[in-house]
C-alpha cells in the first residue's frame, strides 16, 4: 500500500430519493456533544417548549444538574411583538451570564419557531456583542428542523465561528469536526510521528482558542456532515483534502494518508508509523468481524455517518449492505467513501419512513442501524438494531478504535445469540 488516497470513481448508479415522513432529529441535537467539546461555551436555544423537551430527551438522562445549554422559551407575548422578544432575550442573556460568569462564548441557536416568526438572531448577537463588549462573544446559528437535520447543527455552529478565525498562511493541518479528546490526542501524536507538527482543531477545546486559517491550511474532515464549513474554509484559502472518513482501520489509514501526501511525508516513514497501528487495529477487529461477516445490514438515514459506516462494515467487517440511507447526499464530501462501496449498493436519500420500514420488513436484514424511536419497535418485530445516536457520542475514530466501532455493531448480534429465553 502506498501513501496515496484511493482514486475517486464515478458515483454509484441508482439512488432512491424519497420525500415523505422523516424520522430524524433536528440540528439542535448536536448541542448535546458540542457543549461537552467546548466547556466554556453556552448554547442558548431561542425556541419553544418542544425544543427544550427535545434536547433533554435526546440527551437521554439529565446528567448535569446545571447544563451548559438551555432554551429561551418563547411565550405568547413574544409572538405578539418582536420588539418585546428582543428585549426579553437581552434580559435573559444578562441574567444567564451573571449566573455563569465562566462562559466565554454564547451561541444563540435559532429554532423552527424563531425562524418562522423571523426573529433576527444575527442582529441580536450583534447587539449583545456591543453590550457585552469583549467579556463574552455572542454568535448565532440555526439548529432548526426546517433548516437542518441532526448533525447539520454542528456544521452550522462551526460555520458561525469561521468569521472569528484569524487569517494566517502558516502551514498547518486543520482537523474539522468534534472528536473525543482522547481520540484527538492520539491523532495529534500520530501526526507528530509523521512529522506533521502543526495540527489544530475546529471546534477547539476552548471556544476562544480559535485556529487560524489561510493558504497554508489543509483541512481534514473528521466528520462527514460539515459541508458548509468545508466550503467556507475553502473560501478562506484552505485546501480540502479528499479522503474516506476515519472509521475503521482502512478509513483511518487513508484519512491519514491524505494528510501525509499533502505534507510530503515519505512513504517509508508513513508505513513505519502506520503499519503497526493497522496491524494492531486489524487484530482488535478480528473477533467482531467473525460475528459480522456475511450478515445483512440495513442503514436508516439519521446521522449522515451512514455511508462511511457502510463502507467500513462492508469492507472491513464483511457485512452485506441491503440499503444505505442518508438524510441528504453531499457527493463531494462523500466521494471517497462512495467510491469504496461495493458496486450496485442501494443508496437512498431522504426518507418516507413507512415505505422504508416496509422495505426493512421485506428484506429481513440481520441488523438495522436506526434512531431511538424505531429501535424497540423493530426489535419487537424480531429485527436486531443498533442505535445510531451512540455513534455520535462514542469515540469511534481512528485505527485504535476500529475494534470498538465494530463491537458496537457486533454486540446486538452477540447478545441475541446469548439469550435463551424459551
Amino acid at each position, binding site marked *: 500500500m502506498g501513501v496515496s488516497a484511493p482514486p475517486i470513481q464515478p458515483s454509484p448508479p441508482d439512488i432512491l430519493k424519497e420525500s415523505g*415522513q*422523516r*424520522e*430524524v*432529529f*433536528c440540528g439542535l*441535537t448536536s448541542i448535546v456533544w458540542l457543549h461537552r467539546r467546548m466547556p466554556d461555551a453556552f448554547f442558548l436555544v431561542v425556541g*419553544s*417548549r*418542544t425544543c*427544550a*423537551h*427535545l434536547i*433533554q*430527551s*435526546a440527551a437521554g*438522562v*439529565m446528567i448535569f*444538574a*446545571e447544563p451548559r*445549554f*438551555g*432554551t429561551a*422559551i*418563547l*411565550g*405568547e407575548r*413574544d*409572538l405578539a411583538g418582536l420588539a418585546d422578544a428582543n428585549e*426579553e*432575550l437581552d*434580559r*435573559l442573556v444578562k441574567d444567564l451570564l451573571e449566573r455563569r460568569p465562566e462562559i466565554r462564548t454564547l451561541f444563540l441557536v435559532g429554532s*423552527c*419557531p424563531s425562524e*418562522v*416568526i423571523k426573529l433576527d438572531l444575527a442582529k441580536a448577537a450583534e447587539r449583545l456583542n456591543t453590550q457585552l463588549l469583549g467579556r463574552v462573544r455572542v454568535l448565532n446559528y440555526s439548529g*432548526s*428542523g*426546517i*433548516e437542518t437535520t441532526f448533525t447539520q447543527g454542528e456544521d452550522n455552529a462551526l460555520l458561525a465561528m469561521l468569521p472569528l478565525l484569524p487569517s494566517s498562511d502558516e502551514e498547518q493541518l486543520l482537523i474539522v469536526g468534534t472528536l473525543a479528546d482522547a481520540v484527538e*490526542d492520539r491523532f495529534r501524536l500520530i501526526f507528530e510521528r509523521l512529522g506533521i507538527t502543526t495540527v489544530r482543531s475546529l471546534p477547539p477545546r476552548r471556544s476562544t482558542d480559535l485556529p487560524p486559517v489561510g493558504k497554508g491550511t489543509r483541512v481534514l474532515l473528521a466528520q462527514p456532515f460539515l459541508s458548509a464549513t468545508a466550503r467556507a474554509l475553502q473560501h478562506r484559502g484552505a485546501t480540502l483534502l479528499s479522503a474516506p472518513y476515519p472509521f475503521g482501520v482502512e478509513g483511518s489509514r487513508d484519512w491519514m494518508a491524505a494528510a501525509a501526501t499533502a505534507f510530503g511525508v515519505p512513504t517509508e516513514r508513513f508505513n513505519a508509523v502506520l503499519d503497526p497501528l493497522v496491524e*494492531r487495529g486489524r*487484530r*482488535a477487529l478480528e*473477533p*467482531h468481524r467473525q460475528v459480522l461477516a456475511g450478515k445483512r445490514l440495513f442503514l436508516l438515514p439519521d446521522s449522515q455517518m451512514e455511508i462511511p459506516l457502510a463502507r467500513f462494515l462492508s469492507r472491513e467487517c464483511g457485512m452485506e449492505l441491503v440499503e444505505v440511507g442518508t438524510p441528504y447526499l453531499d457527493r463531494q464530501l462523500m466521494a471517497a467513501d462512495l467510491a469504496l462501496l461495493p458496486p450496485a449498493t442501494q443508496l437512498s436519500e431522504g426518507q418516507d419512513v*413507512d415505505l422504508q420500514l416496509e422495505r426493512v420488513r421485506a428484506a429481513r436484514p440481520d441488523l438495522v442501524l436506526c*434512531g*431511538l*424511536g*424505531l*429501535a*424497540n*419497535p423493530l*426489535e*419487537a418485530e424480531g429485527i436486531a438494531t443498533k442505535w445510531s445516536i451512540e455513534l455520535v457520542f462514542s469515540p469511534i475514530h481512528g485505527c*485504535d478504535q476500529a*475494534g*470498538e466501532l465494530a463491537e458496537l455493531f457486533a454486540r446486538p448480534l452477540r447478545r441475541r445469540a446469548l439469550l435463551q429465553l424459551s
Partner: protein
Amino acid sequence: MELTLWTYEGPPHVGAMRIATSMEGVHYVLHAPQGDTYADLLFTMIERRGLRPPVTYTTFQARDLGGDTAELVQRSIRQAVERFQPEALLVGESCTAELIQDQPGALAGGMNLGVPMVNLELPAYSKKENWGAAETFYQLVRTLLKAQLPAPGTPKPSPSRWRDEGRRPRVNLLGPSLLGFRCRDDVLEITRLLAEHGIDVAVVAPLGSRPADLERIPTADANVCLYPEVAGPVCSWLERSFGTPVVRTVPIGIGATAAFLRELHGVLDLALPADLQSLEGQPSEAERRSRLPWYSRSVDSTYLTGKRVFIFADATHAIAAARIASKELGFQVVGLGSYSREQAREVRAAAAELGLEALITDDYLVVEKAMGEAAAELVLGTQMERHSAKRLGLPCAVISAPLHVQDVPARYSPQMGWEGANVIFDSWVHPLMMGLEEHLIGMFRHDFEFVDGHRSHLGDGAPAAAGTGEPEAAGTAAAGPAADPVPAPGTTTAADAVREALESLWTADGEAELAKIPFFVRGKVRKNTEAFARERGLARIDAEALYDAKAHFSR
C-alpha cells in the same frame, strides 16, 4: 420569554400523543417540522414500547414553506387514514405549525374521511403536556359521545340503578396513560380491589381502550377520576352532561385507599363493610390487606420518626405523598410543591394543612434550592429531583412523572391500593436505609477496609460523615497525602509488593492516557494492562502498551 434548562412537562402535543399512544385504533396526524419525531422515543425508550406511536408527522422543511404546506397536510392525512385505517382520528399541530396557520383540523374536516375526527387546538405557547393530555382526552370522549348526549332536562340516572337492573355496580377508571407514573399496575390493583367489593370495571381509558370502549362510558354508574391531571376535565363534563357521579379521592396510601372505598360505597349506595367503618379496636381492612400499617408501627421503624422529607411532584402524587409521609410513616414534611399549575389550589391546601407554603413552579433550580434550604433528609420527587438530590448527597425516591426508564419497572409495583402502600413503604424507606449506610461509611472510613477506593452509591456528592458525631473528619480529608491514615501493622503483604512493582511500571504518558479513560472502567483497564505487561514481561507501561493491551483484550 423564559429560560429553561430542564422541563417537567413537554409541549401540549406530547400530551395528545400520550392519549393516542395509550389507546388502540386511534391515529394522530401531527403537522410538525422535521425533528419533532423525537417524541416517539419517549414511548419506545422510556416505556420500552414495542410499537411505534400511532402518529404521522408531516415533517415539513423550510423548502416546503415556500410551497403549499396545506397540501402536505392533506396528503399526510389521506395516507395515514389509508395506511392505518383508524377508528378515530386526531388532527393537530405542534408549536411551529401553529405559527404558519394551516389549520390542519379544518382541512381534515373538509376531507370526508369517514372516521370520527377530532380537531385538536392545543396552544403551544401557553399550555403544557398534562393540559394537552387532558384536553385531548376530553375532546375525544366528547366527540365520540355526541350522539348519546341526553336531551336537556333529562333526569340524572340514579347511581343505584344497578340494583333495579339486577346487576353488580360498575364504574369507569379514567385517566391512566402512558408516561404516567405506574398507571399500568395501578389499574390492575384498583380493578382487583373493586372486584373484592363486588364492583365491576366498565371501561379503563385512555390506557388500553379503543374508541368503541369510550362509547360505553355512559353505561357505568360512576366515574373514578384516578389521575385528575388527565381525567379531571372529562369527569366534570360527564357529570354535567350525563349526570354520572365522580369519585375524586385518589387511592394512594392507607388513609386515601380507605377513604376512596368509603366514598365509592357512598356514591353507589352500597352498604359499607364492617372493616371499612372506622370503629375503635376493630381490625380494619387496611390492617388485613396491607403490611404498611404494621411495618410502620414495628420497632425498627422508630428511626423514621420525624425524618425531614421534601416532596415535589405532579399534584396527585405530591398531595398523596404528603399525607402518607406525615400520617402513615411519621415523617416531618419540610417542603411540598408541584409543577402542576392546574391543580395548584389543591396542593396549596395540602401544604397549609401541614403548616407549609406550597412551592408551585416549573423551574427545577428553584426546587433544588428549596430542597437544600429545607435541610431535607429524604427527597420524594420526579427524576429531576433525583438528580438534584444526588448533587446534594440526599437519598431520594421517585414518586411521579417525569420519569426515566428505570421508573418503569418490570415487576408489579403499583402506587395505589393496599399493595401500592406496600410498594411505597419499601421504595421510600430503602433509600433512607442507604442513607444510614452512608453515615456508617463516614464513621468507619479510617478503617483500612474502607480506604481502598470505596465508592458511595450516592457518588461524589455524598456528605462526609454528616451528623454522625465524627470529630472533624472532613477537615483532615482535604489535607492531602500527609494526612493519610497510617496503615495498620501487618497489612503489607506480598500481594502489595507485586501491586507496587506493577504500579511503578507506568510511565507518565501511560498514566496520562489511563486518566482519560472514564473512571468506571479505568480500574479494569489498569488491571488488564498490567496483566498484559506482566505476561509480555514489559519493562514499562506507556500509552502504546495500554493500546496494545486494549487491542489484545478487545472482544
